[in-house]
């Protein structure tokens, strides 16, 4: 039987196991939406802005590990997705974005609502496709999903002209796919792995440095095992949080610009740095020349371009992180006696690290009745479920979440690490809640970033997505204000929001519940009440306005040059 392109697209999604998509209709996807109208196997959620739709698909992907799917119409719909696509690209999130395009005969004519989305997204997608013939559609979709989820994952865009959605052809979904130019390395080189284990067994001062790839590669368990077996402490990047339980004695928490003192000291003094699916971002390394200056570096990554990109590496291992760690664990198992010696050799190092830990833990002082933002994060952790998912926006609140929430499970922190996109938090939480209706999902936002996608309150209410929104309201673009305080003589150029917004009324206008706390003794009551309410709730916490995120490594300084107070 012949099907039209629109229907073929939906059949492909179904065969890829897609159950939820986020999309916004328009002229060049109207045929697709017409097919969707009667296609009951896929749930479609209508966001209030295409950027939010793609962030929601991203949040869905981060929380589930599946490929997130979003749809937008051509022209403005497609260009509205760019920030969200770039966000996913920087954090290697598997996604397929489908955009409508003007009919093939009109492409290149500056037709109504035409944009060269293939050209525009080339540098911010893992790959993209323009479908010129309906006969190619099924294979392209198969390739799109395969590329999005394998190797180093990433967003793939499929641009689908209107006439291709209408044209008909026989539908058969390919069983498998071969792309001659795309063969990600899965198994790490066995010799390299053995060498790496040898080096690990010799160390006296090692640190494991974990990036978001461990979570994306579903390798958190293997990583945790390896750290425990060897007794080597673990520090994580922002997007690595959750891969190793922060309440574990071996956890050093996050490293980098706003990382823990102990983590930055450990990296700066170690003799062996084991980088696992991390990419040495400048927010992590500080001044490159002074990064892990005494260490041999082992680097495990699925993406060869990540290796030696900005830091010298002594022992590279290219491969799927989970496969590599499994093999490492097996190799370690063969060296029981050496592992015992290793643990003894590491003892003084662990002692040193514990000293750093107790000398300068991340801290704040809750004095008086004004709420300290860090306090809210600690209370959220205490009062939320252990498997709660927390999406952040970008700014000071994001760093306080990273410092104080104590993540213990993978895929519970959703945060825009690479691009640092304000406006990410609320829609990402929305996507996670759509995937897990029964779980607690929090969106922790600043007052600034929340306003970048607050229209999504409507989507939450309409779809009964019970996200609990937390706004840490300092009435400032706090993170920028902090830089202005420290490096620009407190010249608060355009960072004070001036206008106080009535967030409670705002929530109510959308049909959600709004709660507010302005004194420290109101915090618990607001959180508890929010968790009791069925449905989306916005909690506004009026917090100390000029609180700083500390410690801080000034941009360009080395990790040991932390400003502590």
């Amino acid at each position: 039987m012949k099907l039209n392109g629109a229907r073929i697209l939906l059949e492909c999604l179904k065969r890829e196991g897609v159950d939820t998509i986020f999309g916004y209709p328009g002229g060049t996807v109207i045929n697709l939406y017409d097919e969707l109208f009667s296609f009951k196997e896929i749930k479609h959620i209508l966001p209030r802005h295409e950027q939010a739709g793609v962030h929601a698909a991203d949040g869905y992907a981060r929380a589930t590990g599946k490929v997130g799917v979003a749809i937008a119409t051509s022209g403005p719909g497609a260009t509205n997705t760019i920030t969200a696509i770039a966000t996913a690209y920087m954090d290697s999130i598997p996604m397929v974005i489908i955009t409508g395009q003007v009919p093939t005969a009109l492409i290149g004519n500056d037709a109504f609502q035409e944009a060269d989305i293939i050209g525009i997204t080339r540098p911010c997608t893992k790959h993209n496709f323009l479908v010129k013939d309906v006969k190619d559609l099924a294979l392209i979709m198969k390739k799109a999903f395969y590329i999005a989820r394998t190797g180093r994952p990433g967003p793939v865009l499929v641009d689908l002209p209107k006439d291709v959605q209408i044209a008909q052809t026989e539908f058969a979904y390919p069983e498998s796919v071969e792309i001659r130019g795309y063969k990600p390395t899965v198994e790490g080189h066995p010799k390299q792995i053995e060498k790496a284990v040898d080096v690990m067994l010799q160390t006296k001062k090692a640190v494991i440095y974990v990036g978001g790839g461990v979570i994306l590669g579903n390798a958190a368990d293997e990583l945790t095992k390896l750290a425990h077996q060897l007794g080597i402490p673990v520090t994580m990047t922002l997007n690595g949080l959750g891969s190793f339980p922060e309440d574990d004695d071996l956890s050093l928490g996050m490293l980098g610009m706003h990382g823990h003192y102990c983590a930055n000291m450990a990296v700066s003094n170690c003799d062996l740095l084991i980088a696992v699916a991390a990419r040495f971002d400048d927010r992590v390394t500080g001044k490159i020349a002074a990064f892990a200056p005494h260490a041999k570096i082992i680097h495990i990554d699925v993406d060869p371009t990540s290796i030696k990109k900005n830091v010298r590496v002594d022992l590279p291992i290219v491969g799927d992180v989970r496969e590599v760690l499994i093999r490492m664990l097996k190799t370690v198992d063969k060296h029981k006696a050496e592992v015992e010696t290793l643990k003894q050799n590491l003892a003084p190092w662990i002692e040193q690290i514990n000293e750093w830990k107790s000398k300068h833990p991340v801290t704040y002082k809750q004095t008086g009745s004004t709420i300290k933002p860090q306090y809210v994060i600690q209370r959220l952790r205490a009062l939320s479920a252990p498997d709660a998912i927390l999406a952040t926006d970008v700014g000071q609140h994001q760093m306080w979440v990273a410092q104080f929430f104590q993540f213990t499970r993978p895929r519970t922190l959703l945060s825009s690490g690479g691009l640092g996109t304000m406006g990410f938090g609320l829609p990402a939480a929305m996507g996670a809640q759509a995937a897990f209706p029964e779980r607690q999902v929090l969106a922790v936002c600043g007052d600034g970033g929340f306003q970048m996608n607050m229209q999504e309150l409507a989507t939450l209410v309409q779809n009964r997505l019970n996200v609990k929104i937390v706004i840490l309201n300092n009435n400032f673009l706090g993170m920028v204000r902090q830089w202005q305080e420290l490096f620009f003589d407190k010249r608060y150029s355009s960072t004070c929001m001036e206008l106080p917004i009535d967030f409670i009324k705002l929530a109510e206008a959308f049909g959600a519940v709004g709660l507010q706390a302005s004194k420290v003794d109101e915090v618990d009551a607001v959180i508890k009440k929010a968790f009791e309410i069925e449905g989306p709730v916005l909690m506004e916490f009026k917090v100390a306005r000029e609180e700083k995120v500390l410690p801080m490594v000034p941009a360009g300084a080395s990790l040991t040059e932390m400003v502590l107070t």
Partner: protein
Amino acid sequence: MRHTIAVLVENEFGVLSRVVGLFSGRGFNIDSLTVAPTNDESLSRITLVTRGDEQIIEQITKQLNKLIDVIKVIDFEPENAIEREMVLVKVSAEDESRAEVLRIADIFRAKVIDVTPKSYTLEATGAPAKVAAMVELLRPLGLKELVSTGPVVIGRGARGWKG
């Protein structure tokens, strides 16, 4: 260091802009670039000349390899490869310089492909260094216009894409 890199790609629309975009997006340099289909019509072969230290060249080849449409990348070592380019040069040729232009053309086995009372146009092929040497000799005689294909490269014997 100058490197001549051959990139074998899918012969499809948009592929060249992916390759070029990679260079511009990362601030890598392209000195020259040529592209055409190969004996296998589903493939195109790009030859590009770039420069950079060892680390930059390693990143360039890795990034090229990462592109889905790129099938193979060969960073040729000069001793294992043969490089050729073609130039068309228009030179002033009046009075006494007319004979000199022809002498130089003869030495470099260049062909005269256009003649006017005031100019000669020469076609020369050869290793980039040889072609450059000819151009330098012609320059003082009044070099009006120079067009170059940029080098193409092929591996010696068993080296390269298909030995």
